[in-house]
């Protein structure tokens, strides 16, 4: 389809309580610059149920407009309702570009939309830029497990769509905004919704691991040697108010649940401080954490690739280094 405006849209994914998932708000940060470069408005699109919190959050993150579709059928994400509502909005307003957070729901919605609209979609982007000559978006993403970066363009199809991994961009502090709120009364007939949430399985033993929101992450890899090897990391995390992360090697060995995994097949994180303990630094892991502000590497092997991305390093056994580090931090904190 043809674009009717030069606007750039950011999909604000909501939770069932009507608040926004962080990634949508994060995407408003690059969205502002890109919308300006593209010569259009920055529009936040909120779909949810009782989504006032998400609307307010988007309005104070620099959006020029917030388009809202609110209805009980949008309380829990489902492909048919969300794809239907989004298609309706896109056909009505004709944006040039659409950014979607690469959450499990965003990655469910994006391809469905792209196929329905016959436009191109680039998944899991880590870099976004408007080409000053052509005016089209250049989407940069890792491929082959992070071994190669590719820049993808969609010259003709509109809107050009991309999903962007959570944690790649940072949410800005809220500012007073005068965003125009546009409410669209669009409802999906019940019989057209073909998937239904029956039950949420809350595993009592498994706490929610908020890696993407963490300011400090203490991560362990193959070098921790077993589930009990994470204990010193957990102690340090407790002292620092940090979250425990892990490499794929540690998760695949069954030492720690998948929810802790950082990397290409886990979470992308960009905390203030990332401490990699006994992690060699496979390219897949680096793809998920190299955007961290400060990286500390602790590894027995001085040749480990993790030292190529780290800012501070200690060559040594993590079971000697980590407790000493924790003890000193405790002392400093008191």
């Amino acid at each position, binding site marked *: 389809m043809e674009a009717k405006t030069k606007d750039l849209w950011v999909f604000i994914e909501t939770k069932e309580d009507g608040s926004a998932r962080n990634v949508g708000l994060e995407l408003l940060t690059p969205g502002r610059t890109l919308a300006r470069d593209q010569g259009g408005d920055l529009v936040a699109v909120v779909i949810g149920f009782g989504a006032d919190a998400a609307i307010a959050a988007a309005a104070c993150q620099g959006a020029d407009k917030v388009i809202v579709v609110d209805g009980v059928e949008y309380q829990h994400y489902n492909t048919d309702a969300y794809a239907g509502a989004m298609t309706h909005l896109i056909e009505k307003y004709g944006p040039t570009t659409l950014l979607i957070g690469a959450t499990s*729901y965003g990655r469910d919605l994006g391809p469905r939309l792209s196929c329905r609209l016959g436009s191109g*979609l680039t998944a899991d982007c880590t870099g976004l830029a408007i080409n000053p000559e052509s005016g089209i978006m250049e989407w940069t993403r*890792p491929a082959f497990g992070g071994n190669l970066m590719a*820049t993808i363009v969609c010259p003709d199809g509109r809107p050009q769509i991309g999903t962007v991994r959570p944690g790649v961009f940072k949410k800005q502090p809220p500012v007073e905004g005068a965003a125009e709120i546009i409410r669209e009364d669009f409802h999906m007939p019940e019989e057209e919704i073909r998937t239904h949430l029956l039950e949420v399985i809350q595993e009592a033993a498994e706490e929610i691991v908020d890696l993407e929101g963490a300011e400090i992450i203490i991560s362990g890899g193959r070098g921790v040697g077993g589930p009990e090897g994470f204990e010193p990391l957990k102690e340090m995390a407790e002292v620092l108010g940090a979250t425990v992360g892990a490499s794929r090697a540690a998760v695949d060995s069954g030492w720690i649940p998948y929810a802790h995994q950082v990397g290409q097949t886990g979470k992308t994180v960009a905390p203030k401080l990332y401490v990699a303990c006994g992690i060699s630094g496979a390219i897949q892991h680096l793809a998920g954490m190299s955007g961290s502000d400060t990286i500390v590497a602790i590894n027995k092997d001085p040749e480990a690739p993790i030292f190529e991305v780290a800012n501070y390093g200690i060559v040594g056994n993590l079971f000697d280094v*980590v407790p000493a580090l924790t003890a000193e931090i405790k002392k400093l904190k008191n």
Partner: protein
Amino acid sequence: MNILVCMKQVPDTTEIKIDPVTHTLIREGVPNIVNPYDTYALENAARLKDADPSVNIVVVSMGPEQVRTALKECLAIAADKAYLITDRAFGGSDTLATSYILSQAIRKIEALEGYTFDAIFCGKQAIDGDTAQVGPEIAEHLGLPQVTYAVELSVEGQSCKVIQQGPEYRQVIAVDLPCVITFTQPDFDVRYPTIKRKMKANRAKIDAITAVDLSEIDLTRCGLKGSPTHVKSTFVPVHDNHIVMFEEETVEESAVKLADVLNDAHII
């Protein structure tokens, strides 16, 4: 119940290297494998067949002739029949073009077999492209509902309960057949083929479907030219950093120094 499993043969990305000059894959010595996520789709189909031997599993893959090896591996694990979709006109397809070709081929296979598929299973994503797009796009082309990030499922009559890895928790999603389901890693392992199945798979005849077999296909929507997205450039990620190493007498002393530096810089 007829289940189609879509499979992609991929280079083992844990083994690959990129030529720093040409930015191309160094394929030499890198094994080609069945995309791991597709094996989870196949295993889930096999489990349905364990429970109900009348379940029929067909596996399909698009790619060059060498993909036959991967198709045979799927036959050896659990599939009853395999099709290869191959044509030069399909080369260079992006996900949208790929899913379009697959959806056309699925219709063709249904015509050849004389039934329609009750379910189409895919891996959540392939480990080379990591896009997770082809499954949902097949669903859209065929007008079917989709459930992504599935770990396992149960089927009763025409209704299906899928355990999905949600953003925070696992959840149960209800969907009616026919549908498209894409799988992520389950809690169970993928079965190994038996010797008997392996030998049978080696002798199996795998029919190829080419562009001329797909009478309704619009070739302007296939291949590099039919793809809305193009690769503009590629580069090898470089990490330009300055590292400060702590090398005191003992590692404990190094740790103390490191903590002090982080504290002074207000990082902790």
